[in-house]
């Protein structure tokens, strides 16, 4: 184990090293004594590896494997598992403070909060804090969509609040693409609303805001791009014409979709 530790912490991409550790754990877990807290070792070693290389696929995967195996053998309700999951959540927060766009860490965080049974509201609170720190952080916006999707259908009251959050970002910094991208998800969820009146009202109010921002910021392409997928055929053509003139780099694309 000491040898593989040296191997994977200096060169985490050597998957053979991680697999050897997994095999050793599987063997050791047979005997109660050796199984006592094999996981602390695995978490310690993969943490060193991640500190050296925070985007290493095998290190993240080993960590996920370790936690999954703990859950499988001890159960989610075990005190040890809960404490470990809480520590993992705190570790994710620390790593995301250092690099708020590390998608490996965001994916691992989704796995941890789901295993821990964190409420959607609590995780939304966390992403809101990350967005307030830096609303260009698209990964935090994406996390909102992922955890809301994981809960199932999104109701119209929740959508209303999310549209407001996105709109605040549009008015603050219309050129910032993060909230506009999140807006695409909101539109898709609004279109999936089951009650026709609620659906039509949500889309109409979203379109209204896009028109307003487009008016206030005539040189900004994002509200026009959003309008291009919301307006009727005639207005859509006008919007694409305007896009071609303010964003000539993509004129080939606008012509393709017209």
């Amino acid at each position, binding site marked *: 184990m000491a040898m593989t530790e040296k*191997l994977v912490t*200096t*060169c985490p*991409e*050597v*998957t*053979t090293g*991680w*697999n050897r550790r*997994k095999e050793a754990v599987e063997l050791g877990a047979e005997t109660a004594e050796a199984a006592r807290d094999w996981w602390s070792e695995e978490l310690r070693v993969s943490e060193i590896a991640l500190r050296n290389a925070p985007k290493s*696929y*095998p290190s993240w*995967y080993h960590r*996920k494997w370790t936690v999954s195996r703990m859950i499988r053998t001890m159960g989610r309700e075990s005190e040890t598992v809960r404490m470990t999951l809480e520590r993992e959540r705190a570790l994710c927060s620390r790593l995301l403070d250092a690099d708020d*766009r590390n*998608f490996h860490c*965001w*994916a691992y965080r*989704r796995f941890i909060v789901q295993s821990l049974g964190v409420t959607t509201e609590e995780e939304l609170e966390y992403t809101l804090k990350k967005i*307030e720190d*830096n*609303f*260009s*952080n*698209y*990964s935090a916006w*994406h996390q909102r*969509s*992922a955890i809301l*999707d*994981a809960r199932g259908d999104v109701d119209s009251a929740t959508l209303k609040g999310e549209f407001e959050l996105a709109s605040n970002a549009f008015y*603050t*910094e219309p*050129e*910032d*693409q*993060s909230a506009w*991208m999140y807006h*695409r*998800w909101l539109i*898709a969820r609004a279109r999936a609303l089951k009650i026709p009146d609620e659906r039509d009202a949500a889309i109409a109010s979203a379109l209204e805001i896009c028109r307003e921002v487009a008016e206030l910021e005539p040189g900004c392409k994002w509200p026009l*791009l959003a309008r291009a997928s919301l307006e009727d055929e005639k207005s859509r053509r006008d919007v694409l014409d305007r896009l071609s003139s303010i*964003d000539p*780099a*993509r004129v*080939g*694309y606008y012509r*393709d*979709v017209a």
Partner: protein
Amino acid sequence: MPSTSASAIEDLAATARELHRDAFARNGSAEPLRGDAHAEYLRGGLGALPQVFVSLDASRAWMAYWCVHGLAVLGRVLDDEVRTRVVGFLDACVDARRGGFGGGPGQMGHLATTYAATAALVTIGGDDAREVIARADVKRFLMSLKEKETGGFRVHEGGEADARGCYAAMASAHMCGCLDNDVRSGVGAYVSRCQTYEGGIGGEPGGEAHGGYTYCGLAACALAGDFGTLDLENLERWLVNRQGEIEGGFSGRTNKLVDGCYSFWQGGCFPLLRRANDVMLLQFMERSKMTVGGRTVVGSDDLGLEARVLGACAATMFTSGAFESSSTPAAFSSGALQGWILDCCQSDNGAGGLRDKPGTGRDHYHTCYCLSGLSLAQHHGRCGLVEVVGPAESNALVEIEPLVNVVKHKYETWMRALT
């Protein structure tokens, strides 16, 4: 509200604007490509690959590919001695027990390095390169990593599954001549689940869209002849909006900085999209006639068969490039992309090697993908036309096949000999 990432984007755009202006003032166009210096740098990378030496470095098969492919794109020929040594090195990377190639001699087989080693061998070509590949072993290796339930592939024994795994499996199978229905089944469905509302493709279902995975997912579908339920229109919108209008290069994700390597990962999607649209149109036409390749498919009971035949015939046409017909310009700005690579990704001091962006150091990975991106911007900006920004004698590169990122004529020679 302070926003560090937004200001970093503005800073990079300002730097790029200045570099473009300086280049134009000096040359009346973009910078000339310093091909000799880049070739020398890539040759140096191959010098670090001894024939058989077990080391810890897990990316040496990749190193071989980056350098061999980069040199081929530059139109350079390998010395016999180097050529033989690289083939010997890749042979030593074979994981005989599992099939497939490891990252270095004695290492466990990995899908990514299997792709890299295969693509390097295709580029090198010749009987000895061909002999390194044991088709049946590669197939056995791929099938041992396939997840039947999802259609995805684990990247190595006991490892994670993602869109990268799908691509590496499809491209390796294609070049090794073992891409059959066992290998391809379910790939379109898996990749479709990785597409996000942004339009791009994430590494795994639920993940954020990412340029590397988007290329991998789209190319995997193209190779499999199965696009599942991918929304190609939305994919295209995401892609075009990744190109920075001032910088000219592509960013890898929503609201990230432009980076030279995405010249290939994002740029390479455009020729694939164009062919995908042709193939889907053809599939639709074929389906409405219910006749496939001379055989009439009768009732809906036979749809399984129809889908299989269509998949195979679409894959063939895809890789033969039979559908590149339209001469309209691509949806991205190929001239701006060339400008980014020439003005911003070559070093400031005249040294060889290309980089992520101004202010970062060169490396072999970025050198390979900047050159690949430059080649495809020259050859796939407008179908049937080669458009070179800057002086053609220094800047024109050899055409690549975007499905596998191997120089086109070498790919074609290899595939013709594959029986």
